[in-house]
């Protein structure tokens, strides 16, 4: 591989989008070519500085209010339809529900794991919608960890990963799989990561990505009698990075 070719690949390499063969060849080249190695470091530095929070524009409250006002009348305006057409609607509704029940019982009964994953994603979305990401807001693990004491019958591991680009924002109590669980909240620029933790009888298992639900990525693992679920709208690769950084003790 010559320098010209290498320069074309360093971006895909830095983005984790290069195929295995390309990685091997490029790494060999970078090893022996200081100029290309520098160009690669320049790309990495640029990428890092593009990810700062302060570059991200948050939607102004004004826009949210305008939208709310626009969305509300859309449901209100259709009142007359209801009385006019209620019988059709009701019978169709009943028919649809019967069919859906039948289908769900026979065809698409989700496994308990799938149900759990769905429950976790719902909980994640709820925390975002209600602007209720956390009960204790602190980037200090020594504040967050004791906060859980007395509220839970276990002590979840708490770490701040600010230096790895995933600052700890706080913690929250949540209710999943019919029990109280710990939720740790991390940020990656403006993306929120919820990490749910509770005790389990499961054997230790390596972290594995689950099929995304509604565009949210999920990674699950068990370790030392605790089960962990990380969920975020972050892409899978970066969420996996987070999991590795949080990683086994």
């Amino acid at each position, binding site marked *: 591989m010559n320098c010209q070719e290498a320069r074309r690949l360093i971006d895909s390499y830095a983005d984790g989008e290069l195929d295995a063969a390309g990685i091997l060849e490029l790494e060999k080249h970078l090893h022996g070519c200081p100029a290309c190695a520098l160009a690669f470091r320049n790309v990495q530095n640029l990428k890092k500085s593009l990810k700062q929070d302060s570059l991200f524009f948050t*939607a102004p409250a004004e826009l949210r209010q305008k939208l709310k006002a626009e969305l509300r009348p859309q449901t209100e305006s259709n009142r007359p339809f209801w009385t006019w057409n209620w019988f059709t609607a009701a019978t169709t509704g009943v028919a649809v529900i019967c069919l859906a029940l039948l289908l769900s019982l026979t065809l698409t009964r989700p496994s308990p794991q799938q149900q759990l994953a769905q429950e976790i994603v719902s909980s994640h979305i709820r925390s975002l919608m209600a602007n209720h990401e956390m009960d204790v807001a602190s980037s200090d693990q020594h504040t967050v960890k004791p906060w859980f004491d007395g509220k839970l019958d276990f002590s979840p591991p708490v770490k701040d990963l600010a230096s790895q680009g995933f600052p700890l924002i706080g913690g929250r109590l949540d209710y999943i799989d019919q029990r109280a669980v710990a939720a740790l909240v991390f940020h990656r620029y403006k993306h929120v990561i919820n990490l749910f933790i509770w005790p389990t009888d499961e054997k230790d298992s390596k972290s594995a990505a689950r099929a995304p639900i509604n565009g949210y990525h999920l990674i699950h693992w068990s370790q030392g009698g605790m089960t962990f679920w990380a969920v975020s709208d972050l892409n899978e690769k970066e969420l996996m990075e987070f999991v590795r950084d949080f990683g086994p003790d």
Partner: protein
Amino acid sequence: MRVDKRERLKSFEQTVLPHLDAAYNLARWLAGNDHDAQDVAQEACLRALKFFGSFRGDNGRAWLLTIVRNTFYTWLRKNRSPENVIELGEEGLAVEDVTVNAEILNSQLADTESIRRAIEELPVEFREIVILREMEGFSYKEIADLADVPIGTVMSRLTRARRQLQKRLAGEFKPGAKP
């Protein structure tokens, strides 16, 4: 009927509205100011609601951002003179062997304002790819779907955008010269 509509609105609010920040951020970077960005983001959300029935995918954020992007380009054609739309040349991989002064570059990277300016000065087709990749973390494939261009184009635009950013930050960018 009203119940259907309610359900639809509720589902819309759960699937799409959590991504309002992402929608505004993209609109803001594309339009360049708050006022226009709010218009574009609002219009996009209303369009999204209108077409919500046809939403089949599982990624509400990518879907909403696709609509933001389309809304922006429609708005751009209506509201700005065509001179401001920069036509990109052929999409060939004309990545030149650029090396920039790493010291100047790294000192500029610490300055948020310089970075902000450098991104704002990028042609809009480059700017959107940078936002989608670095701030939203989409994969090349997702960006290709979202911007309706081949993956090769995503790669070449991203590479050229980054070289241009580096040159601008290092003070070596000459407008008119090929990026």
